[in-house]
């Protein structure tokens, strides 16, 4: 076997939090990257995977990061932790390069992309301005940017997110590096763009014979791209090996849980297994029980939306204004105890639909019939009682809870606002019941949101909605910000609540697998319009609309080697 290109041995990194406390981000990890190989570093937030990447490049903040002196990062026969800063600089961008999660903020906003690509060439290859520019054009062409001669004059903000990431990749491969580190390069991108970028990286890897260290939280992506996989949790490596082997036969219980708790499109278990199930050794049974979904005409309708439209306006010219149609003629029926999934990429208008139904935006036109009334036509005062019956759970659990209120106050607030729930004592009693229902300990009552994790906060938000005993719950990307293992727990909770209270859900998400798992019917939205609306099993099995097909094709299947053979 050949010598590894990169060899990390016993890497320990600590961060100084304040004068007394240290946080151990990496607890001695070891792994290798062979020449011409793609290795995936997988883990949920806090696993230390990004810290490892930054440590390899020597980009950890000098002020508070402490690397253990016994650690070794060997690259091409040299220990990167021992060489001088100047030597390290010469390696960066030429031998080892890196791309990041947020392409928009990772590019300097005030320089053209041509200048920024050229800068690497001028720095490492000593190229002159014109030569560097010509090479930049070639590179842009190579990463698939149309009209590269024109685009090198563009500033980053004039390009789409996918194109920005292509520019980052062009910059990274400019000097033909031996190792490309990709830190969550597709997390911020839509699913169709994600697929393009993944294919591009795989293609470039082959063509240039470079090694790729691919860092991600998404195991499904790993399956498509990596030769080997390293699974991390809490700064430790849980398991590493050939991707095929790890996927087929995971040895570690955490890896098993990660693989199992993400919903997949081809099956639908009654409950999603969660990490605790695997740690307790009962994960495997859970997959077997399945659930059937779908609606029939006999199910009662709770909400009927007709021709909903929402326009936004932007100023243009001296007197003119530009109209942007965020939602165009959306109509649907929501049935009792059922879930309507709403999928689409960013800018499709799916979130606007939810906010308009809550009257958090005023609709431009259209009707929404609920309980015999068109709730969009009611005055603010008349609408107030209906606010109790339609509730919403937002995407970011860190933003949707008021940080200055205790959990008890947050959950009790709807009762106070509407003057319900009796006296303080009985209100508090109800809060304790709800806390138990969403699986939070009683002592949460007097705690503040900042003391809870993302998943727990989302439970608090759910409990707040439940105080009003709503008929309809709108889940706006409610699990998108959560790690997969936590996501499974919250999805299970939502499912339990639907089963118990007969709630109707409008489930908005960009994640096709999650929508498939949760929904009875699915609506696909693109640029403000509904392009397809069907029972979820029907839609996923035989999509009719070309956009739906494209969307479904882009889902990472989690099958090793899929991208390579695409």
């Amino acid at each position, binding site marked *: 076997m050949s010598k590894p290109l990169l060899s990390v041995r016993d890497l320990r990194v600590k961060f100084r939090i304040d004068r007394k406390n240290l946080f151990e981000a990496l607890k001695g990890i070891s792994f290798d990257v062979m020449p011409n190989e793609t290795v995936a570093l997988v883990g949920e937030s806090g696993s230390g995977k990004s810290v490892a990447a930054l440590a390899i490049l020597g980009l950890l903040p000098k002020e508070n990061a402490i690397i253990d002196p016994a650690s070794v990062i060997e690259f091409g026969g040299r220990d990167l932790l021992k060489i001088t800063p100047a030597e390290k600089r010469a390696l960066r961008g030429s031998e080892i390069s890196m791309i990041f999660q947020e392409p928009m903020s*990772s*590019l*300097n906003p*005030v320089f053209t992309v041509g200048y920024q690509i050229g800068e690497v060439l001028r720095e490492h290859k000593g190229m002159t301005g014109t030569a560097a520019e010509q090479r930049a054009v070639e590179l842009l062409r190579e990463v698939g940017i149309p009209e590269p001669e024109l685009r090198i004059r563009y500033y980053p903000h004039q390009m789409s997110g996918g194109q920005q990431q292509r520019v980052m990749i062009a910059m990274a491969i400019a000097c033909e590096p031996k190792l490309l580190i990709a830190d969550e390069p597709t997390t911020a991108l839509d699913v169709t763009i994600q697929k393009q970028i993944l294919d591009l990286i795989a293609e470039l890897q082959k063509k240039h014979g470079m090694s790729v260290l691919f860092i991600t939280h998404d195991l499904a992506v790993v399956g498509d791209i990596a030769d080997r996989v390293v699974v991390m949790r809490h700064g430790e490596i849980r398991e590493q090996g050939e991707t095929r082997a790890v996927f087929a036969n995971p040895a570690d219980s955490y890896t098993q849980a990660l693989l199992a708790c993400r919903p997949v499109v081809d099956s639908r278990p009654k409950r999603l297994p969660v990490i605790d199930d695997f740690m307790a050794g009962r994960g495997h049974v859970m997959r077997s029980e399945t659930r059937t979904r779908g609606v029939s005409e006999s199910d009662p309708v709770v909400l009927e939306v007709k021709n909903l439209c929402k326009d936004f306006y*932007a100023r243009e010219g001296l007197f003119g204004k530009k109209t942007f149609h965020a939602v165009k003629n959306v109509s649907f029926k929501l049935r009792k105890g059922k879930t309507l999934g709403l999928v689409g990429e960013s800018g499709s208008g799916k979130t606007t639909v939810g906010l308009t139904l809550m009257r958090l935006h005023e609709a431009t036109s259209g009707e929404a019939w609920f309980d015999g009334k068109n709730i969009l036509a009611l005055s603010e005062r008349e609408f107030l009682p209906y606010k109790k019956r339609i509730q919403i759970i937002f995407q970011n659990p860190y933003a949707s809870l008021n940080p200055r209120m205790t959990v008890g106050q947050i959950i009790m607030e709807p009762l106070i606002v509407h003057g319900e729930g009796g006296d303080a004592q009985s209100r508090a009693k109800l809060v304790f019941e709800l806390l138990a229902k969403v699986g939070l300990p009683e002592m949460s009552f007097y705690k503040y949101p900042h003391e809870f994790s993302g998943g727990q906060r989302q439970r608090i938000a759910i409990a707040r909605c439940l105080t009003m005993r709503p008929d309809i719950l709108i889940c706006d990307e409610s699990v998108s910000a959560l790690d997969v293992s936590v996501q499974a727990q919250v999805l299970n909770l939502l499912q339990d609540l639907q089963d118990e209270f007969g709630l109707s859900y409008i489930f908005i998400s960009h994640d096709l697998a999650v929508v498939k798992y949760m929904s009875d019917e699915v609506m696909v939205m693109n640029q403000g319009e509904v392009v397809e609306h069907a029972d979820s099993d029907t839609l996923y099995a035989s999509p009719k609309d070309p956009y739906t097909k494209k969307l479904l094709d882009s889902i990472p299947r989690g099958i090793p080697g899929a991208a390579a053979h695409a």
Partner: protein
Amino acid sequence: MTAYIIRRLWQIVPTMAGVILLIFLLFNVVGGDPAYLLAGKISNAEQIANIRKQLGIDEPYWYQLLLFVKQVVTFDFGQSWSTNEAVSSIFATRLPNSLLIGVPLLILETIIAIAIALVVAYKRGSLTDRSVMVSCTVAQSISILVYIIVLQYVLAYKLGWFPVQGWGNGFFENLFKYAALPIIIALAVSLAPNIRLYRTFLLDEVNQDYVRTARAKGLSENRVMLVHVLRNAAIPIITNLMIQLPGLLVGLFLIERFFSVPGIGREVILAVERSDFPVIKAITVYVALATMLANLLADLLYKAVDPRVELK
């Protein structure tokens, strides 16, 4: 772009109207009868009667307001109550002197403050950084009056390096002889806050993702700071400079007063001391107009230095 400028110029109208109304309320309604105010300051009864007429004091408020608007539009505020000098001539003769101190000061303070801010931002968290920052805090805490009194006493009076005060006629005589000490003192006062501000601007940029990218590209720390960070920090710095521009017109009133520099600032203080309303009104109104135009210019410049900005 043109549409934007036209709209912005159009927006100046209501604000200007507000400024005129505010000044009118202050001086004609709240300020009361100037004859009463001036009784002790100008003994000439005929002159006071003249002023009353000029102001239309005995006329209803709407007429007085109309008169004021006419003054603003025709750029004719009449004459100073105390010196009888035409207000327009006060502008013409005092403004160049204020600018002679203000412009070199603004240039020097910007260059020096950016240089020092770059050094401390580069060495952020170090002893140098902290001691510069503490010195800035202390320096900012001492009143500008103390700087003037002490530096004038020591450098001019005791050591005789500069004239204690005065103003000449030649441009170079004024710049190098009389303006030198005022500029030095003003620099001593303004450096500390500017260094702190620019350091904040620079540090805001240092933590951005693109700086990490620049390092990942293998660029030297100098290039990261001087090209990538400084170019981005230049955006708020330039905005800050544009905000300071209208201040040039008002002059450094305390310094002008101490050094007997015949500038606008000294004129303002004299006018306030003498309740010389036409002079104060004229200066206030026109400086407000200049400020609004400077703000417009700042936005246009903002567009020039920041490619992300679109003027709508």
